[in-house]
């Protein structure tokens, strides 16, 4: 696994946190919520490959 991926996820996290702050300061709580959800979905799509490789590693280790 490359370290780049971690930095990418950290970057998205920071950006989403800032966006959430800005939107909720402007009184748009629902949109801030949507942005947070979108951030979660984007990060999930980025890490889904790594998760699947983790599961297959667990399978091979325990011979399931």
């Amino acid at each position, binding site marked *: 696994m490359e370290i780049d991926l971690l930095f990418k996820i950290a970057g998205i996290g920071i950006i989403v946190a800032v966006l959430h702050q*800005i939107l909720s300061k402007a009184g748009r709580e629902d949109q801030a919520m949507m942005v947070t959800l979108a951030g979660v979905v984007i990060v999930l799509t980025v890490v889904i490959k790594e998760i699947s490789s983790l599961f297959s590693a667990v399978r091979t280790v325990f011979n399931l």
Partner: protein
Amino acid sequence: MEFVKFSIYALILACTTGIGFLVSQKYTKRESELKDFKSAFNLIKTKIRYTYEPLQEIFDDIAKNYNSSIAYVFKQASNNMQTQNATDGWNKAVNEAVISITKEDKRVVCSFGKLLGQTDSQGQINEIDLSLSLLDEQIEKAKIDKQKNVKLYKSLGVITGIAIVIVLF
């Protein structure tokens, strides 16, 4: 290859920043246009009261004196008045103009033309006073909107650009 990639990232960032800036500018423009309308209406009121100039001349005069986008509205209204009555000409000019004010603002600005050229000067002045007080309310609203949204859209543009670049990186 690397260079092309980074220039595309820079382009995306510049685009979203520009979009954010343009959207925020709409709110600034709306307020200044409403203020321009207010001062123009005051000018028209004074001219109706003291000079008795024909409306078309007053409108042409205003179109010449103001260099913002509202000058176009007055010019168009003055042109329309050659074939239509003052109210219809004014409404058409306001509704067709490409300016930043909202639909609600346009309705208030249109109300200014309701009695234009139809009653005596006192009636017209009263009508203009009424639309001026309505316009003041709209200016207040525009001010609040501006305070709330200008900063928001500016930072939103930049941050969205950064987010897209990070996701694509």
